[in-house]
């Protein structure tokens, strides 16, 4: 669907913008538990940056940097991080997602552990959202077969 399309202005501007967008996305993820934002929003921003890359250059360029396989791995990795943290809390004797318990394995106190736990979750969510966004886009753009959202 998307063919190679040379436009110096678009390509240059995007090349300049994309790193900043990505850093901003990471910021939103990282700062999510103490200000507006979070894994979801950050993930969307990250995903959008890849889509922008794809739009400004072409699909092959995108493929080079982020193969389908990698996307899939990211997708499940994020969920695994999310669920894994919850699981660790469970193993540590608390309830599921009871981050406070994490202080037993982390060198910090309970409150900070809670904060870190939420951060970990946000990272997981961010990765997943990014991967899913990109993969939906790619699937639609590259005329591939059906997959889940």
């Amino acid at each position, binding site marked *: 669907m998307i063919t190679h399309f040379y436009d110096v202005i678009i390509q240059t501007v995007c090349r300049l913008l994309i790193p900043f967008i990505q850093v901003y996305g990471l910021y939103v993820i990282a700062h999510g538990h103490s200000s507006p934002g979070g894994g979801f929003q950050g993930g969307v921003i990250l995903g959008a940056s890849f889509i922008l890359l794809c739009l400004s250059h072409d699909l092959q360029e995108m493929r080079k940097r982020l193969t389908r*396989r990698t996307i899939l791995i990211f997708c499940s*990795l994020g*969920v*695994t991080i999310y*669920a894994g943290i919850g699981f660790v809390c469970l193993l540590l*004797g608390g*309830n599921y*997602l009871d981050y406070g318990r994490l202080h037993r394995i982390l060198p910090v106190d309970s409150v900070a552990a809670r904060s870190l736990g939420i951060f970990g979750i946000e990272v997981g969510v961010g990765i997943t959202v990014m991967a899913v966004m990109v993969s939906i886009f790619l699937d639609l753009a590259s005329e591939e077969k059906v997959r889940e959202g």
Partner: protein
Amino acid sequence: MNEISFPILIIVVPLISAFFIILVGLLRRDLCYPLMILTLSFSTLSSISVLKEVLWGGTIHYRLGGWLPPWGIEYVIDPLNGFVLLIVSAISLLIGITSKRMVEREFPEKATFFYCLFLLQVTGLLGIVVTGDLFNLYVFLEIASIAGYALIALGEDGAPFASFNYMIYGTVGACFYLLGVGYLYIATGSLNMADLAQILPSLLSSKVVLIAFAFFMVGIAIKMALFPLHVWLPDAYTYAPSAVSSLVAPLTTKVGAYVMIRVALTVFPPAFFIETLPAALMLRWIANGAILFGCILALAQKDLKRMLGYVLIAEIGYIALGVGFGNRNGLTGAILHILNDALMMACLFLFVGAITYQGWPRKMDQLRGLHRKMPLTAAAFVIAGLSVIGVPPTCGFFSKWYLVLGAIDSKEWLSMAILLASSLFNAILFFRVIEKAYFESGKEHGMVQRTMEIKESPLTILLPLLVLTAGVLSLGLFSGKIISGIIRFAIPVYFK
């Protein structure tokens, strides 16, 4: 690991392994299936232990992240959802076992995604049952539905279109449900079911609550394919791949029925449902319509699977009818029928899956000589069919019996007539198929030729089918135990 964390593990383990399967699938595709079976067996085992726990020690409350309700999300397991939980996990395990061969035959290249989606669907269904929070229920409802849309779309020619229609209906249903949640939140400021059940009785005169209730009912009715909102069902289930339809058909609608019981009778006070509003009355009439309509349209079908779809609509009518009677017997019948119907439908759809797997056509008039080629499969169909008709000692009879008692208790003679007539309709339906399968042996020329190679289905399909059949046969005899051991506790206190 303490035993009390089983409620969450039931949900989380399938969820994690659903995504884990994608990872595994990239490396070793053949490991996906064992992983899925392992997960499902874990769910089944833990739901058995949870049910035991609940029956011995009373309701389990599990707080996610340690937040106290009504702020945090709470998972609550009482006898009612413990019971449904066991049904869902056990049947999905059985269907999961069968799925391998069918997947290999129908879409081998998508096996990884299939297993992932399958587990997601099961996660969603289990989540709906376990959760004690209305919004969380919505999320799980959508997880199950979205996985369902994608799974159904894997099927035959018409599947994507049928799935799209299903999606439009399903989304409207889910949105209505969400609106109901919203209005309820406005009125009460809480989303926790137990909390709501305490707040609501004082707010019943509020119009907001009334609207919320109406939205809930319509939304759930769409999800459980209650007549006249059933239009998506026959198409979707007919075109779905066999492994999918035998998972989705018995469980999704039953879980919908569970949600209806949960919302109408435990979140809202039962008196509101039965006495204040004519809701129970309306439900009765709708259910009457559903039963009649389902049976009559089923008569008109030539495709076996589509016929089963309409039978399913009628069966949903039974459950709704039992709830609509609003008395003890009716409700017992409805809850028992959730179990029985799940078994019967799994058995029937699996039968269709098994014969399609062997390349047998699904058209009714082409079933000749089936019993010679696939005797056990055909026998399973006969038994499940008898159960739908309501012939004792199969389990279908006992739930019907309770429904009849419920009808007598609430003096609904018309409903009773319809109940009885529907079993006659079902008799026509199923004996028509049985006659074809058993008596008109493949005498015609050509038919014999083609059917020569067809053998009994492979063990992984046959075994679950036979287990289900045995369940249909024996659970009927144990229904007294089930009722006095489980369902008795599952019925809201109001009815005692």
